[in-house]
């Protein structure tokens, strides 16, 4: 639904919606997990009383997400602080911890952190010691997970029921693009409490990598909203764009970045560097259609577009050769 993106970009576009329009906007915003962001964008405007009440609740929810996200980060900090390992917060928790605009109203789920790959042997037992446990009692196929995925198998805290994803790079090692995790860690920035966040450029590029390389664009509208907020906040400084372009080349994410900038500009009116964004392509339209494939009941529309992206996500995740090797190994291990 284009109306949702429009309302986020320019809240005045929601003025004068009728009851039906509001109901649809609210359902779509919930489906895209953008209701909190929307609620803050609409704060202070004159809304129908029931809409105001729903938005108020959304802001309260967002405050609660924020609180528990920051608390999980703090508990991870306490668990890992004796290790002398850099712990980088990722995604929503990072935006909240750093007080960035992208964190305002954002829904935040699991805690995502990145640590150096060589620190995993220390990090893992420290987390287990502090009360996190494997989501499943028997982490089978562990070797595969650890060798090829970009994170440990998920852990959940036994008292707080919250998951932590411990990454050592930002994409699966099987993905075709392999951003330079060591460079990201090296450029990360310390927060006052000792936890770290990615540099502004890497923060944007991490989001971009996830938008295109790691998924079927489900949740893409929210991801792109993150990018819009980050780019508006960081992009006021001209030198940011220079660093961003160079950094994208370093990580091999230049094409992805260009596409993300064009989509952000198209969907949210984000001011972007025209040179880095490059010339528009016809396929941009296709991506934009996928990102706004949501109706006023919160349902995905444009099934064919969505399905095409689903297929795309699967072949992106694992190169054919890898897939073949994986299956070969499984076949050989089969009981006779």
């Amino acid at each position: 639904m284009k109306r949702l993106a429009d309302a986020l970009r320019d809240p005045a576009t929601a003025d004068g919606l009728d009851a039906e329009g509001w109901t649809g906007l609210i359902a779509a915003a919930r489906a895209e997990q953008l209701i909190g962001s929307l609620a803050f964008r609409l704060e202070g405007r004159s809304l129908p009383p029931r809409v105001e009440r729903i938005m108020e609740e959304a802001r309260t929810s967002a405050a609660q997400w924020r609180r528990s996200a920051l608390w999980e980060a703090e508990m991870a900090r306490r668990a890992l602080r004796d290790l002398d390992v850099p712990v980088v917060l990722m995604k929503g928790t990072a935006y909240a911890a750093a007080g960035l605009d992208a964190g305002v109203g954002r829904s935040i789920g699991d805690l995502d952190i990145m640590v150096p790959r060589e620190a995993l042997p220390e990090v893992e037992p420290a987390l287990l010691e502090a009360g996190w446990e494997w989501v499943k009692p028997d982490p089978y196929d562990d070797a595969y997970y650890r060798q090829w995925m970009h994170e440990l198998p998920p852990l959940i805290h036994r008292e707080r029921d919250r998951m932590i994803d411990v990454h050592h790079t930002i994409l699966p090692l099987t993905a075709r693009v392999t951003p330079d995790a060591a460079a990201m860690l090296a450029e990360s920035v310390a927060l006052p409490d000792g936890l770290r966040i990615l540099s502004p450029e890497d923060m944007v590029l991490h989001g971009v990598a996830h938008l295109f390389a790691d998924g079927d664009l489900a949740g893409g509208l929210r991801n792109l909203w993150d990018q819009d907020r980050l780019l508006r906040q960081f992009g006021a400084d001209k030198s940011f764009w220079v660093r961003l372009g160079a950094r994208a080349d370093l990580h091999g994410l230049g094409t992805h970045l260009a596409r993300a900038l064009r989509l952000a500009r198209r969907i949210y009116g984000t001011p972007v560097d025209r040179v880095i964004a490059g010339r528009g392509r016809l396929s941009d339209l296709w991506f934009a259609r996928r990102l706004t494939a949501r109706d006023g009941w919160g349902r995905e529309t444009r099934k064919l577009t969505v399905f095409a992206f689903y297929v795309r996500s699967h072949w992106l995740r694992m190169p054919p050769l890898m897939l073949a090797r994986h299956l070969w190994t499984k076949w050989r291990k089969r009981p006779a």
Partner: protein
Amino acid sequence: MRHRFDLRIGPVGFRIGSAWRAPIAALGQLYRGYPKPVDGIADFTVRLEPETRWRRFVRPSVAIRGDFTLPDAAPLALAHGLLAAEMGMNLQMALGQRRYLILHASAVERDGRALLMTGHSGAGKSTLAAILGERGWRFMGDEFALLDPATGLLHAFPRLVSLKNQAIAAMEAEVAPDRFGPRLSGTPKGDIRHLRPNDAAIAAMSAPARPALILFPRFGFESAERPMGESEVFVRLTQASTNYVALGEPGFDALGHLVKSVPARAIDYPDTGSAVTMAERLWREAGL
């Protein structure tokens, strides 16, 4: 969506969409006369849709979706579409409600004061509330009671009473047949028949009440009662709340206040008649 029904239950507005006509027709019949959402804007959307496209026609099965969805939720047979709609509304409340502290409890009201009943499923809270609702009390709800942290008042949520198994016959003896929905056999929860609250309950659904007594009934034992300490009541109510933790500080204040200011009793009862007698007596003894 093809078919649609909007309604308000207590303070909460719903929009229910369905790929099939039957569940909506059943809702329209049993919820006739319920108000529409405030300002025409629903708090929550529920969708009853086919699992996959072709399942709209072939062995139709109803997936329960909406603003808030539980992954891996089992679909229901189309014949159980009414139950699916009810479960869909419950699910929105359980996962999405942030204004009121939700207590998984039934409630009835007299003189502006509310009697809350909570307990494990099968404890009889639903039937008790339904019976009391026909015997001089105002029925407020059989599933969720909504505590407003801002006022300490309890808001009604008088959805259809969901009668299970033996409770169906008990209520059929009490209430005129035109208030019942179809008997749904073989649902995941056994046999279910929905009962429309009486007109007085529907007319007063917007009036909140001050909580005055909390009962923890248990069916199938000799009549007995014991007072319950504040700590035990607090823990049991947090476990009976779907959003206590999500509400944060207002939830803590509201529940703490409730536990401190309202007496609570655990009661065992062998049959509904003795439970009604006990409830009336405890209500009087509490000076109410």
